């Protein structure tokens, strides 16, 4: 008797409602945890992807620029004859030393200001330099390097592999004959905002022949004076980028690199 009565009784409406309500609350909780996990995990992955890309780009640039000015013939007694570390004030494009090219007041990119003797105190999004990759002592076309970003978010960072045509007129950023390759994949990251910026502001210059005015950035030696100067170039690279498929993921990174080969000049 007891048995059959029990079987037929079933759940009351209240019981069912309570059970369903509890079930829904539990399910909702679980779902929200699930969604939060997915969202966080997605954000973490995106941020880490961007971080990784940017760190890799900065590393490549810093490691390469650090070598600027290496000369296989490196005759330590005549460092001012280093063909990989020349500054040509008359024809700026002949300059092989580390050089930051910048956007001028009119918005034109990479203007060469020949009257500028000292290349520090400049910021720009293009840099050119050279080093003796094959160690033969001669400046070859494929030993003129550079990095640049042209200022639009659909422009990637370009890396110069070669600058044919001797020294004349090649050390500029917008030459059609130079061979530039993409360093970044525009489908992965976009350079935005202030983008890529090089600055030599922290460099220092020592005039070895003028004890009274040793800072040759503050007191530019007179051409023909015979003064020898030694420049220690310190380059700050800053990079501002976002993910192409998720523009909300942005980051800015800065790296400073000390160019190890000193720039020696005789005026």
């Amino acid at each position, binding site marked *: 008797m007891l048995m059959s009565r029990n079987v037929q009784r079933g759940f009351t409406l209240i019981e069912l409602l309570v059970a369903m309500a509890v079930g829904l609350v539990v399910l909702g909780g*679980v779902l929200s945890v699930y969604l939060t996990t997915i969202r966080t995990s997605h954000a973490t992955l995106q941020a880490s992807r961007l971080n990784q890309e940017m760190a890799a780009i900065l590393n490549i640039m810093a490691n390469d620029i650090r070598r600027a000015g290496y000369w296989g013939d*490196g005759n330590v007694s005549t460092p001012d004859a280093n063909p990989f570390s020349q500054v040509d004030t008359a024809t700026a494009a002949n300059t092989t030393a580390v050089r930051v090219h910048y956007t001028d007041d009119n918005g034109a990119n990479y203007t060469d200001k020949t009257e500028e003797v000292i290349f520090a105190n400049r910021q720009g999004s293009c840099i050119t330099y050279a080093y003796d990759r094959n160690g033969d002592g001669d400046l070859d076309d494929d030993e003129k390097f550079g990095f640049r970003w042209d200022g639009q978010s659909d422009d990637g960072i370009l890396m110069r592999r070669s600058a044919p045509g001797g020294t004349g007129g090649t050390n500029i950023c917008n030459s059609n004959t130079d061979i530039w390759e993409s360093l970044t994949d525009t489908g992965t990251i976009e350079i935005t905002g202030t983008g890529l910026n090089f600055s030599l502001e922290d460099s220092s210059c020592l005039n070895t022949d003028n004890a009274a005015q040793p800072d040759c950035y503050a007191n530019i030696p007179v051409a023909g004076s015979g003064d020898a100067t030694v420049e220690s170039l310190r380059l700050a690279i800053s990079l501002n980028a976002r993910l192409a498929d998720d523009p909300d993921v942005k980051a800015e990174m800065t790296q400073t690199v000390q160019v*190890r080969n000193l720039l020696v000049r005789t005026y």
Partner: protein
Amino acid sequence: MIRIVTPMVTGRHQRGAATLLIALVVLTTITFISFYTARTVMTEQKVSSNVLRSRMAFEAAEAGAESAMAYLGDGRDRDGDGKLPGVLAGSDDDEFLFDSDGNPADNESNTLVLDDGSRVTVSLVNQDFTTASGINVIATEIQAQGWSDDQAATRTVIQTVALVSPLPNGPQNPLITRGSVVVNGASTVINPEGNSTIWSGDDVDLTANNSTHTEVANPADANYPDCLGDADNPCGTIQGSDRYVAGLDIIEYDTSLKNLSKAEFFENFFGVPPAKYRATRVTMDIDVGAGDDLNQIKLATREVIWVDGDIDGFNGTVGCRVAVVGAGTCSGDDRQPSILIVDGDLDLNGTPHFYGLVYVTGDILGSGNATFHGSLVTEGDATATNGSLAIRYNSTLLEMLAESGGQIAGGGGGSWRDF
């Protein structure tokens, strides 16, 4: 009793199964996503730690190169066996670059272990050359290989540095004076490597004392003339001059010395004017007038010392690691010659010993029994009133000076590479 329970249990069980199932599915998905994220993050961590290790190895290599440069400043071939310290074939196996046991007296290792666990091994390669204008340049290639703390990453930095010699044109005589030489005490001037002893722009007077004499290389020596200019296997000597006989070994009244200005005389040996030399090449600058303690120069090794003012009554050893007393000598690796420039008079008392070059802008006076190994040069007079001078020329010591108090030049003017 069993039947009573079963339907209830079954009913509850089935309803719970749906929740459980959903919960399980959701949890499994979350777990997988978490795993995926964790794996990606871990990969990123690995990449970053690889970058970090690579950077660590690089910094270690740089630290090694810098330390080697500091070492080079005090002379690179310190035991003078012609081989440089390092780990390369042909390099020295009993001379080392770095101090590993914290005792600065000697070095034991070519490997430097840094605080963060990374380490660097350094080799030196001789790159000496002669410029088109005939100047010998002492150049050394530093090869520094750095490892990260776990030895997984390694980077190599190679750089050539040149040493600027503090004595570009070393003297060829034991005693050179622009002024006169008057010796009252018992003095000996010995040049076992050549045939000249005293070179003076004025009078040389050795007549005051019976014992005063000069000695030059003996042509009858079995090794003559190979022993000339060889300080390690010097010739036997014979007397050149004494109080009665002025031999050919003494050059006096040489107008080519007398007519030089003091600055020109200085520049003849040191290559640059005195003021510039003091500003750029000197490693120990002692201003006696300003109260600097002259005893600092005792046991000074591999230094370029400038003393502003007179040295009066100095009684110590310069240019040797151990103090030499009485008639003793400094030998072997203990000989670490210095350049001592006295901008004033050198007044000798007691028994000082000098190894290297002593250059005096004033006069040499005093009554002490001073011993000079290397060379003694003065712009003024050498008048040892009552004291005695013992001067023995040594070309090896003078050559070692080229690497003393070294100034590094060209350390990075185009020679640095890491590939």
